[in-house]
């Protein structure tokens, strides 16, 4: 099956390491994919609040482009790793199906620029593809460096499985658990999987955002997690980069690795850390390396 990869803005900037690691994993799993040509901004939350119909047209253009690019294929799957893009694309499809008038306007606008929107495109999250298209068995087969002894707390944030995704439970998602179980890791059972990380409030009202991030990391620490894996650039950024501020404010010593699920899976697949963008992290996950080698943790 051929996939269309829609990066969105984050994966080309702050989330560069997400893109690098995800595509490296796709390659390692022999997935057939191509980047969406001439893609544009998904609109995120900002444009929706300004002009809904135009925002949906903007997002729908990406879906129509994918249709165009895979014109000859009976089935078109867009892979959307950024949780905001993923949510917006799903929302767009749902909204247009439920609002025929808006759909007609959007379809016409796209038609005028030479594009077709039929709605047949499937918007997929890479987690969904890894578990439901490739499968845990296949992943296990490809693992060369099992994550033996690594305690993984998987974290999805607010938009990956809510509110439109259907590939996993919205309150207790387990897709990442399945992947890392297949990669030989120990799974941490916790209830923080979809709790808010503070989102963009870290940049605006930090006093509100910091406790939100802290609750998540504190709980991961309490449950002896070695690593928190994320599927969203903003979550990764908030949870990794503000640990010093949290330590100061809550008088703790958090020191816990927060990396993309694709990076951790990439390590288990034996991919060179450099190709996984590990060097772009704030802190190199030395614990993971050590545990995978069978050694003791450097920090707890």
């Amino acid at each position, binding site marked *: 099956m051929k996939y269309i990869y829609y990066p969105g803005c984050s994966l080309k900037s702050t989330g560069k390491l997400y893109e690098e690691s995800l595509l490296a994993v796709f390659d390692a799993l022999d997935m057939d994919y191509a980047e969406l040509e001439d893609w544009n901004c998904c609109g995120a939350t900002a444009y929706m609040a300004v002009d809904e119909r135009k925002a949906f047209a903007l997002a729908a253009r990406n879906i129509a482009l994918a249709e165009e690019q895979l014109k000859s294929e009976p089935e078109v799957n867009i892979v959307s790793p950024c949780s905001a893009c993923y949510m917006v694309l799903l929302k767009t499809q749902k909204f247009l199906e439920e609002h025929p008038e808006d759909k007609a306007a959007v379809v016409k606008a796209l038609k005028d620029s030479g594009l077709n929107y039929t709605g047949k495109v499937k918007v997929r999250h890479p987690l969904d593809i890894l578990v439901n298209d490739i499968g845990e068995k296949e992943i296990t087969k490809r693992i060369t460096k099992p994550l033996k002894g690594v305690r993984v707390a998987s974290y999805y944030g607010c938009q990956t499985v809510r509110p439109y995704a259907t590939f996993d*439970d*919205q*309150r*207790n998602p387990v897709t990442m658990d399945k992947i890392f179980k297949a990669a030989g890791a120990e799974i941490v059972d916790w*209830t923080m999987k979809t709790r808010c990380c503070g989102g963009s409030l870290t940049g605006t009202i930090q006093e509100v955002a910091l406790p939100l991030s802290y609750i998540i990391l*504190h*709980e991961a620490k*309490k449950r002896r997690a070695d690593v928190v894996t994320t599927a969203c650039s903003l979550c990764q950024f908030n949870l990794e980069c503000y640990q010093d501020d949290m330590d100061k404010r809550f008088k703790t010593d958090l020191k816990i690795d927060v990396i993309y699920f694709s990076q951790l899976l990439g390590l288990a697949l034996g991919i060179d850390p450099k190709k996984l963008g590990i060097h772009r992290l704030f802190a190199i996950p030395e614990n993971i390396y050590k545990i995978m080698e069978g050694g003791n943790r450097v920090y707890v």
Partner: protein
Amino acid sequence: MSDNNNKLNGSPQTNGAAVSNGTPKIGFYVCHCGHNIASQVDVEDVQKFASELPGVAVSRDYKYMCSDPGQELIQKDIKELGLNRIVVASCSPLLHEHTFRTAAEKAGLNPYYFHMVNIRENVSWVHDNKESATKKAKDLTRAAIQRVFFHKALEKKTVPINPDVLIVGGGIAGITAALTIANAGKHVYLVEREPTIGGHMAMFDKTFPTLDCAACILTPKMSAVKSHPHITMWTYSEVEKVDGFVGNYRVQVKRKPRYVNEELCVGCMECIDACIYKEAKYPDEFNQKLSKRKPIYIPFPQATPQVVLFDPETCIDFKSHRCKKTCIEVCDREAIDLKQVPEYKEINVGTVILTTGFKTYDAELSPQYGYGRYPNVYTSLEIERLVNASGPTAGEIINKDGIKPKSVGIIHCVGSRDQKAHKWCSKVCCMYSLKLAHLIKEHTGAQVYNFYIDMRTPGKGYEEFYDKLMTEGVHFVRGRVSEVTDWALVPEEENKLTIRVEDTLIGVVRRVPVDMVVLAVGLEPRVDADDIRRMFNISCSNEGWFLERHPKLAPVSTFTDGIFIAGGCQGPKDIPDSVAQAGAAAAEVLSLISAGSIELEPNTASIMEDHCSGCKSCIPLCPYSAISYIEDSKKAYINEALCKGCGTCVAACPSGSITQNMFDDEQIFSEIDGLLKFAGIELEETEGEHA
């Protein structure tokens, strides 16, 4: 009338087929139904339109056709104008077809010369444009008038009612219905799937709002069922097959093997003590798996019948055949029979009451409440067992770690009033939560919190019970709980379950740490409700509850004659409502039995012998086994007494040699022709193709 004339004035093409009862003289009546129809349909316009249609001798509109004066209008016209066809445009035939047929019959017209047009449910109630609604009403009217040209006089058939009754489900509803009918001297077969009767009520400790002991009021009824001379009680049994029709159902019941002879066992339970498993080690279903049982067990002390049974899944002898069989040695009545096989009973009954009950919502489907994740989160049914003297802790409310809780949170509406689970209110949870709050407080002295969306306490003495609970010091927090979690924000929350909830009365988000959480799970249809409804040929609502014939006026009847429903299978309801419905269903059954016979609609199918090729393709299709093959004539034959008029064989016959009363080709095609005239389409004269 010649064919030419028909064409000119647009009357139905009779194709030379003879119309019965002389030249059609049709009376047409359109009903205002107060404002129900008249506000959306221009009834006078419809009346004028109909008066100009061929064959219509008189056309009138009237405020309430179903009223006595309305009916008298029809009767007067039949007598004075010599009408021989009647069409009424009003509500659904489900409501008043019978009324008008009877009116016509009283005026000396065969009731099957009457036809009804539904311009209320199908027109005025569902359209908001008066002009097009009126047009649709006219089209339907024209179709009906063209149809009625070809109606024929038909005779109803009468079938006797077998006085024996089948009741499926031995909960409080089934028990009540069984006793009522049996006390009237009629024989009842009570079939229960579980090893004992009693249903959910047998699991409860107390009942709201009177707080009387559930077992004390239920067990006398259970024993009465067991010993009643007119009740055949088959527990651990399921209905496998149902054939026939009202008055004459043939039912096959499978009696699952208990591996114990029910006639011989006296319930001494010595075999249970003798079992080579010294400790009970398998989850006890009756106690909601909070305790353990042995492979040979009895569900609870007052189980009826008082007979043990084997669980072949866990008994060593069934798995390896290498058990010492100490149970058999100890039984001096030789009641144990490990070679028992399922037994199939065939019974004939005239009527059926389904009292198959409900199941509780699976709390694991709402993972935010932590059921299955945190050991101290319980469902309400589990607490019912915990608080019950015959339960797993002999009535002590303690957590799984053996510690008595100092604070307990009861979360309402788990699985109910939830867009992600069930949209309906389960009706009983507010009240049973109040009852549990009272019992928990009484047993433990704990602080008890109720987290509710709305308190719903309509019922005799229910609101007073709620008042009483408030004076007892039970806390009430209004708001839907967002999650139950074990992460602590402050030291007081360590090692507790914290309930996060928006208290909507004071407008703040609260965190309430408690030792025990009780989930007030809602009620939902049983998993196999759909299989049951298919077997008995009744309908289900979208949610899966058995559908009553009319929500207000026929609440225990179904769309299948002779099949009645009562209790939780029809929708969430408490014990008083279930008992009331069971009584109503019993009365319906007794009324049929008392009448002795029932008139059936003459909409049966028949074989045109000249055309039948004897291919037998219709025979296996008939759901009522009404068709047989006559060897002598090499033709199929339909037994009219068995035919229910479903029409399957009519549609399936390859040579078109089956016709059905009230659904003749002429009637149907003429009706379609009348309907399509709005689009300027006329059906061609295709006599050959119709067949």
